């Protein structure tokens, strides 16, 4: 994982691209939806933020494995004493951190563009975003291992990951919107439970299946 983070910091272009794309998404949403303020702003802001999160997840998860495939290093990892389950966790963690950094930037932009405040409501939203990032990173890392072995795999990854993530996405958007709007915790909790359930599903599936899909054939 340390190697992955070092590579990403040295590369740098992914994070810059993600921040720029997050900015673009948020700007487009602000001008297209013309939010009037208050609760409506919170729901719209939450939706825009999750769009940026999904984009970060697709790019981040594909990149942490792309670095291994482009120079043949995946073969070295497969042939090494490294447990393939541990490889999954390392890639998942790197993708999660990558998404978290991109999301932090997106949250700042969201607050600015949607006329929100840096207050306690953001703190309530943070666990929702973290759970969403974890679930999507877990799912996308597994799917990236599969799609990396086929032609045009980069195009396949979002086509596979996003539909599978839709239930969790809905729960995440609802929970984030409720948190930003200052709704009671009970209103957030019902969506959080769904998000946690999908996180458990995606992480379990990834940790069990990754070693079978990461090989050459």
């Amino acid at each position: 994982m340390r190697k992955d983070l070092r590579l990403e910091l040295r590369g740098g272009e992914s994070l810059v691209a993600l921040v720029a794309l997050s900015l673009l998404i948020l700007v487009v949403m602000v001008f297209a939806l013309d939010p009037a303020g208050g609760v409506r702003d919170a729901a719209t802001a939450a939706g825009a933020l999750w769009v940026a999160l999904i984009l970060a997840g697709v790019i981040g998860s594909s990149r942490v494995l792309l670095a291994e495939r482009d120079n043949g290093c995946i073969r070295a990892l497969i042939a090494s004493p490294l447990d393939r389950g541990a490889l999954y966790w390392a890639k998942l963690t790197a993708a999660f951190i990558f998404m978290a950094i991109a999301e932090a930037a997106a949250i700042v932009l969201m607050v600015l563009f949607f006329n929100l405040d840096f207050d306690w409501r953001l703190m309530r939203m943070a666990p929702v975003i973290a759970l969403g990032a974890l679930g999507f990173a877990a799912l996308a890392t597994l799917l990236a291992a599969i799609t990396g072995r086929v032609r045009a795999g980069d195009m396949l990854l979002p086509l596979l990951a996003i539909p599978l993530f839709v239930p969790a996405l809905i729960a995440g958007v609802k929970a984030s919107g409720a948190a930003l709007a200052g709704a009671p915790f009970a209103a957030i909790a019902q969506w959080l439970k769904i998000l946690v359930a999908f996180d458990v599903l995606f992480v379990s599936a990834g940790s069990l299946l990754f070693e079978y899909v990461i090989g050459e054939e």
Partner: protein
Amino acid sequence: MTDAAPIAARGLFKSFGAAPVLRGVDLTVAAGFAALIIGRNGAGKSTLLRILAGLWSPDDGAALLFGEPSAALPPAARRRVGLVTHQSFLYPNLTARENLEFFCALYGVAGAPEQIARWLERVGLAVAADDRVRGFSRGMEQRLTLARALIHRPAALLMDEPFAALDAEGVAMAAALIGEALAGGCAIVLTAHQPLAIAKLEFALYEIVRGRLVARPADGGAEPRGAIDPRQPAA
């Protein structure tokens, strides 16, 4: 020779679609011995090596490392295998030293900083130790690849054209490293397009002909044939 030999293949078959590449390959390489496998482009040398390394599965037969199927090798056994292929397995945005640090961590090499410094010196890359691999020439990458494959002192080495891209000094360096590994009891399988005439290295020579492994000379096996005269090609 038994299946507990470090490197063994039993009746390997491999096809890509309708095209058979390997047709019943048998090979045994004991500790301290080396097998050189030659053949034309597309003969199946790299395919054989990848199957022996456990990266690909054969259609039939068995590839064994230390008596275990290479595709299902336990971590302790994988720690004893070194691999050199056409791809360097090096991360372009890491330095030479960082690449070796990573592989030392993967293979649990004790005293990694000292070992890394020593190996970079051995392969002639001490000056470029903190340069990113992205800026290396192909020959420099190959030197670092050899260091990567040998730094954990493997008991079995699988090397696909290990002398590729090396200058005369690099070839001599690589031959010395391979000779030391042999002297230390490592079993080695190397591939090349044609017989190698490397002073002081002893190989059992095989050729892949129409998917079959043919021993040269005809009595086969993996015992050394005596020192190869560098003035003459191997028989």
